[in-house]
């Protein structure tokens, strides 16, 4: 799992580290499929990804993904954005699957179990867990409590809950107690590693 909506909240330094680490044949869960040449696009360009699960791969600057997809070199599982978020949330909350009206009667419903609930047709959608989540937050403390910055929060808090190992890159680590308990967004129980990325703060 890789956080971010476009480049806001994308953990670019962690992705660079993943490229350097060398893992291959990856399945990536992320809202988009990379922008321009950096971050997720660089991971795709390095041919490390076998399959991507996302809602919105096609963008004006998604040429790396577009090329791989047209060449048949990457598999795509297209998921409505809210269903993607809810499948991730479900995985983190111990929910195996859920029913939703989103997507019913469309191409994306093909092969899926359906049920009428309260008179409305629903699709069965399964939880979407991951081995590793790479996310970006603003600040952390030693327990892994996280606060985010503006709309860079997006998928971070739910992905943190849905992976066996969640790694957060942050712009700074503060002392225990320095983060106001009322404002902590991701409690440290969901976070396994914190990495300070120089320049991770966007302003």
């Amino acid at each position, binding site marked *: 799992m890789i956080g971010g909506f476009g480049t806001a909240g994308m953990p670019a330094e962690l992705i660079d580290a993943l490229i350097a680490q060398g893992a291959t044949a990856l399945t990536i869960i992320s809202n988009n499929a990379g922008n321009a040449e950096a971050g997720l696009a660089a991971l795709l360009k390095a041919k490390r990804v076998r399959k991507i699960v996302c809602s919105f791969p096609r963008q004006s600057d998604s040429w790396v993904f577009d090329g791989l997809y047209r060449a048949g070199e990457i598999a795509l599982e297209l998921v409505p954005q809210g269903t993607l978020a809810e499948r991730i949330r479900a995985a983190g909350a111990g929910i195996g699957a859920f029913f939703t009206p989103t997507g019913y009667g469309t*191409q994306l419903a093909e092969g899926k179990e359906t049920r009428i609930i309260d008179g409305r047709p629903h699709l069965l959608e399964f939880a979407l867990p991951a081995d590793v989540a790479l996310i970006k937050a603003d600040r952390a403390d030693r327990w892994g409590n996280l606060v985010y910055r503006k*709309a860079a929060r997006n998928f971070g808090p739910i992905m943190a809950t849905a992976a066996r190992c969640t790694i957060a890159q942050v712009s700074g680590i503060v002392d225990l107690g320095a983060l106001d308990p009322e404002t902590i967004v991701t409690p440290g129980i969901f976070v396994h590693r914190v990495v300070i990325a120089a320049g991770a703060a966007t302003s």
Partner: protein
Amino acid sequence: MTRWTRDEMASRVARDIPEGAYVNLGIGLPTLVANHFSKDREVILHSENGILGVGPSPAVGTEDPDLINASKEPVTLVKGAAFFHHADSFGMMRGGHLDVCVLGAFQVSVAGDLANWHTGQLDAIPAVGGAMDLASGAKQVFVMMEHLTRNGESKIVERCTYPLTCAACVNRIYTDLAVMNVTSEGLEVIDMCSGVSLDELKRVSGTSRVFGRPG
């Protein structure tokens, strides 16, 4: 045939959004609506990437890469704005909390079926984003689109030929020619661009099930 301009269409949509409404404006044409709310009306704009209370575009030089809208363009906040994560953001749509969403479309059928995510062409790279969640979850779905394609074909159809985003979800259609409610009897015209007649509207639309006495 006379047509409303894009700004006239946006202004017409804005007029119909009530005070205090929570509204999501889709990518493309619908984003223009934000420029047309009257100053004395408080409308709270939702952005699917986790903002309620989206404000106007920032001044050049003050953009923040962490403060963007669903089109990934820089935005600002209004007083009272809030951030939240993606599951909450889509819970607002899917849970029926948003009052209105305004979406663009490739086609809308007389029954209110919406096609706006995929042209169905084999070489097209599909991308769905939040379109299906919005269309199936918002209390009211408004579509804002040109009445005709560049080739002069009606985007209002008896039956969508493009892949569906959501069946029977559209409540009202705003085009450059008319404003129509989707009803069980067909499309009820509630407003028309001056100089356009109901007969003309029927002729250029892909259906005869257009009725009403606008004006």
